[in-house]
């Protein structure tokens, strides 16, 4: 099935067609499950004026943060940012527009974008700065605000395994925003740790069906850890 083989052989090919001022939706939470090599390719390309939609913006020298020094990002839509100095500087200087969006609303906006739902009501953010300029409405006596969906010119996604048709499987919490991002790109580019032949993945266990995927590339990953926490005698976390 040549028509369904999504594999490309270079990162250049993977991000072909990305031009200035486009909107990119990225998977990842913190530095976990981020499409690190696709981001590096965007830096290499030098594309500017980008609107980034991502839960976070990486750190100074890893993840989306590497797009900051060359001022490639015009605007970021995120739930939690500022884990790096250059981000803070650009934001404070008004060089970088930041649209803070609640994490669940952000995930739902991506899902809705991919699912042909232009807008939905949510209680999240009602009565807060997030609600400014948005329609408010009651349903069954509760207050909600109207949120619109997001679609990207590109979506960049990190998965664990894929078959050549672009059927994807994610690993542990590296899944996070990736499945929603995958549905919401006009062009969805995925990088993975392993590519198998069609038929090797259990059809019942595919997280993202290949229909959402346009390009697929095999990468190797640093997978940097943000907070390396280990068990001690005074244990935190669940007993």
């Amino acid at each position, binding site marked *: 099935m040549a028509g369904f083989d999504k594999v490309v052989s270079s990162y250049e090919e993977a991000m072909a067609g990305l031009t200035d001022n486009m909107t990119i939706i990225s998977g990842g939470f913190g530095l976990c499950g981020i499409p690190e090599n696709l981001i590096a390719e965007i830096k290499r390309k030098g594309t500017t004026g980008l609107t980034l939609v991502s839960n976070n913006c990486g750190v100074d020298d890893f993840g989306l943060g590497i797009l900051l020094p060359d001022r490639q990002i015009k605007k970021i839509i995120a739930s939690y940012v500022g884990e790096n100095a250059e981000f803070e500087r650009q934001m404070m200087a008004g060089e970088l527009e930041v649209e803070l969006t609640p994490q*669940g609303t952000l995930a739902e906006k991506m899902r809705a974008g991919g699912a042909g739902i232009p807008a939905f009501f949510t209680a*999240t953010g009602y009565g807060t700065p997030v609600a400014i300029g948005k329609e408010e409405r009651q349903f069954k006596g509760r207050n909600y605000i109207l949120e619109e969906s997001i679609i990207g010119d590109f979506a960049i996604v990190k998965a664990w395994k894929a078959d050549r048709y672009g059927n994807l499987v994610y690993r542990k919490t590296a899944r996070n925003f990736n499945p*929603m991002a995958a549905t919401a790109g006009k062009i969805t580019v995925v990088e993975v740790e392993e590519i198998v032949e069609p038929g090797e993945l259990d059809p019942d266990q595919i997280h993202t069906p290949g229909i959402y995927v346009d390009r697929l590339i095999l990468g190797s990953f640093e997978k940097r850890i943000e907070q390396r926490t280990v068990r001690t005698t005074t244990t935190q*976390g669940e007993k």
Partner: protein
Amino acid sequence: MALSREQIAQRVAQELQDGYYVNLGIGIPTLVANYVPKGMDVMLQSENGLLGMGQFPNEDEIDADLINAGKQTVTMATGASVFNSAESFAMIRGGHVDLTVLGAFEVDVNGNIASYMIPGKLIKGMGGAMDLVAGADNIIVTMTHASKHGVSKLLTKCSLPLTGKGCIKKVLTDLAFIEIKNGKFHLLERAPGVSVEEILTLTEGELMVSGDVPEMSF
């Protein structure tokens, strides 16, 4: 005497019930997991997509693909499940989490909460906090009762931008356990050795005190 961070966590843990699905915010809420009563089981939801968060990993178990909402490496408990962010917040927004514990800068008598933004300071964002406060029926806010300078954080009206409107019913501070209803604070318990007068002094919003207010017991 004012409660320690650990004591706040310990008192919150008394509100747990067997079989509760719980979301614990960053900071003091995280410590609650250390005080789950014996013979009781709770499952921790981490909003980045994990139900059944386990303890921190041993050095040789560290996995970059397995973190919690605080971006710390964690493990999975037996019976855990992993899901995407939309599903995670479907769970939260849909009211399926039994108890949410999170910190705040301020709460007020109308159940408003401000926890994510201090104008003029760097704004890092609300993360999942707005979804958590909007989605949960059962929320406990943990915070210090007042600033180091004695400025109350339990107010008539929050002064900072809100994280959520009218969604907080219970607050546990280092001085008191307080319920919010009918536009007033209600003193349920006081920290051992802390007087009702001291709490009243440090509570800017209207605080109702009825009868003998019991001390917390641990």
